[in-house]
């Protein structure tokens, strides 16, 4: 189902949440941001646990802003799973169908089907406190989807899991999403999680949605400097526009950078910020556009690659290298393609 958030506002003291967002049917959308940026608050507003100060929420075109949470048909999975400790696994899963007064046979077959889907077929009679973290998470997921919700909300469901388990659970969440074609909102502060799991990501900052886009758009063409800095590693240099045509020429500590002009909003004399990712920076030889000379100051091993900090006239530039090294410690040249550089004011 489609979800539309229109001018949602919610204030807590000095903090204000503002949100305008549209989710497509069957989309896996992630709210990404640091702690306290408002992503969980927005999730709770969508679920109906918190009332917005103003704004409307539409689910498949229907205004649900005033609708009580129990009537919205929006399921949620929490970070701590929130399984009912007094009920068995099967009772937890069948809670929603029982509340909706499904026929007994249908409840039983749905519970059985879901227990099998989450690979816990013999666990029906067990109590939640006898389950491992991963098992609890799967039961919570099964409980949430048992009623075929219009929208599935996942509030940092992997934050308590270790790295190995995260991979397994992530696959389970994606499989559930695809099988049921559920419109899903996933809240996390983990960029890697967001990148690997989402159709689209909304990056949050101090109560505002900084930008929304696919993981590729967010990573390579961030619309704001905050997003550029928040996600992945980045090189950020300060410069001054010398000329602006199809290419913008920027001077940075004596080094001239040519940058593809995307917005045509810069003119000579403007102070700008250049941004490019370390992987957009390659070892180069000879002369050409955007060649930077420098010396390697530090090389850090990250398993599949090394991250090198190169001391240049413009400042420290981060660049990736693999063994055998293409960048020499004594002196090296780096090149960045004009289309890989983004300018911010």
């Amino acid at each position, binding site marked *: 189902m489609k979800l539309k958030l229109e001018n949602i506002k919610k204030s807590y003291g000095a903090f204000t949440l503002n949100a305008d967002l549209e989710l497509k049917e069957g989309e896996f959308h992630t709210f990404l941001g640091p702690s306290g940026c408002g992503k969980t608050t927005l999730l709770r507003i969508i*679920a*109906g*646990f918190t*009332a917005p100060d103003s704004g409307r929420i539409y689910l498949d075109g229907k205004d649900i802003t005033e609708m*009580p*949470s*129990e*009537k*919205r*048909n*929006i*399921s*949620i999975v*929490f970070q*701590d799973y*929130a*399984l*009912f*400790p*007094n*009920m068995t696994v099967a009772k937890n899963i069948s*809670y*929603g169908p029982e*509340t*909706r007064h499904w026929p007994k046979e249908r409840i039983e077959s749905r519970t059985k089907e879901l227990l099998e889907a989450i690979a816990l077929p013999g666990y029906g009679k067990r109590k939640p406190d006898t389950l491992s973290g991963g098992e609890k998470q799967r039961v919570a997921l099964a*409980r*949430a989807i048992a*009623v075929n*919700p219009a929208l599935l*909300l996942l509030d940092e469901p992997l934050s308590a899991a270790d790295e190995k388990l995260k991979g397994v659970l992530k696959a389970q969440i994606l499989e559930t999403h695809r099988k049921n074609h559920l419109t899903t909102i996933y809240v996390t502060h983990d960029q890697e999680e967001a990148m690997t799991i989402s159709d689209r990501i909304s990056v949050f900052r101090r109560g505002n949605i900084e930008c929304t886009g696919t993981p590729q758009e967010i990573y390579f063409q961030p619309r704001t400097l905050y997003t550029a800095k928040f996600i992945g590693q980045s090189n950020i240099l300060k410069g001054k526009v010398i000329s602006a045509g199809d290419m913008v020429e920027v001077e940075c500590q004596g080094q001239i950078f040519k940058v593809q002009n995307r917005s045509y909003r810069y003119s000579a004399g403007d102070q700008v910020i250049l941004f490019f990712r370390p992987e957009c920076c390659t070892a180069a030889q000879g002369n050409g556009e955007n060649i930077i000379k420098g010396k390697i100051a530090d090389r850090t091993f990250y398993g599949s690659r090394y991250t090198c900090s190169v001391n240049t006239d413009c400042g420290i530039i981060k660049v990736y290298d693999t063994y055998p090294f293409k960048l020499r410690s004594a002196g090296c040249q780096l090149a960045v393609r004009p289309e890989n550089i983004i300018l911010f004011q």
Partner: protein
Amino acid sequence: MKENRLLLLLLFIVPFLLLLVFFYVPVINVFITGFSKEGLKSVLTDSYCRSICLFSLKQGVLSTLLSAAIGFPGAYILARYTFRGKNFIKALITVPYVLPTIAAVLGIVLLIGNNGIVNRALMALSGAEQPPLRLLYSMKAILIAHTFYNIPLFIRFVYPVWENIPVSLYEAGKSLGAGRWRLFRTVTCPWLLCAITAACALIFVLCFMSFSIVLVLGGGPQYSTMEVEIYKLARTTSNITKACALGGIESLITLLFIAVYTAAGHQKSSYPAPAGKHGTVPAKKLSLHHFPALLYIFFLILYIAMPMVTIALNSLTGKSGWGKENSLTLKWYRAFTQPVMYNPVLNTILIAVATVICAIILSLIISAVISRWPKGAFLIQIFFFASLGISSILLSLGFMLTISKLGFRPNGKLLLIAVHTAAVLPFTIKAISLFYSRINRRCIECAKSLGAKPLRILWTVKLPMIKNGIFTAGIFAFAVSAGEVNGALMLAPEGFTTMPVAIYRLIGAYRFYQACAMGTVLLLICIAAFYAIDRLGEISL
């Protein structure tokens, strides 16, 4: 969302009004009358009243000091040693929590009375014809009874704190060259200070307000406390104004010490918890080399268990005829087929069950409000916990005063239920709100998101999660109500006798065997209650 809050607010008005009518109005009435010019003059100009005030303070201070001094080694042994039967000792020191005072008084009379077990044993050993120990009706008897109750209380307060002192503090001290004495002074004592202060403040309040112990073991005007005097003034001489003045002064002193207790308890809870079992000093195994500790444990068991054992044994003995020796018999229990014996049991159960129902319903509403309105929790707790500082005698006096002003007499049983409910309410609120606060809010939200309405959430999620709290509170309320004697003596209607009152009257009539049978039944009810609480949950303040 807003509708639920409104409903809860409307529900909250019920306990609020009930407490206002059945607690605050009578208590404020006592204060107004007591602190009037006439009331204060009647106490301050009366040398007997002044001496009673001083005696109340004196016996309270002495009882507290004695309990702390005797309990301190016990706390040390439980904190630092491990031995077979340690769990039994831990359970034993919890029993006085729920033991009705009148039952303990009966046990102590049978133990240290002129014809008691101790005197008979000493006479048999020494061949003396007169009892060598004349302890009854003296300060000594009061102190023995108070220490019987409060040594376990002191140990129970102090040993868990002692046990939890982080070993790293001792290791840091040792590495800096501190010896045992310096470590005790600089690490152990500061760590224990708040627990000891809290325990002493509570013990003082309990002893200062002690009623049935002083009434029976004090034996007369020479050893009377303010609490007993209020009862006598109200019931015997009908000098209500003077009783109110004494009650008012007593309450002020009590509230002061409750404030000390609360502050010390708050300080205690702010200590960091050590990192699990391995973060504390490992307990040593107790062996024959630790003879003084073994001797202490032996006497502690004897001291706590003897009054109870004595009651139980006495209830099973009796003479089969004139001039015959004592032998085992069940005849005192067979007497429970007669109305004079079974009526008090039925009355006690009636009042206790009604108290449980009232206390649980009120506590559930108050706990729900506290959980929904955490900012106001402090104010709500102050409002509903005020009964801690007010004795049942004073509250009963308040009822008598208010009734006399209103000019009509409501049902005495109803008033008794109100007094008992007010007495147990702080404990039941604490027990239920403890479980209430542990409910994972997200479980409620999950249930809502799955379509459950408030009533279904209450029935399927909330109540099952707090059921242990409800049982704990209910059992505790039952045990306290069943053992309460003060309110029953003041307010019970003519011909309506509860078990503790029946025991008190049987002691007064020197019918000790019947008293013991009644006491044993009461004891069993309370011990069963204690056992159930121990298995289900926790009661603390």
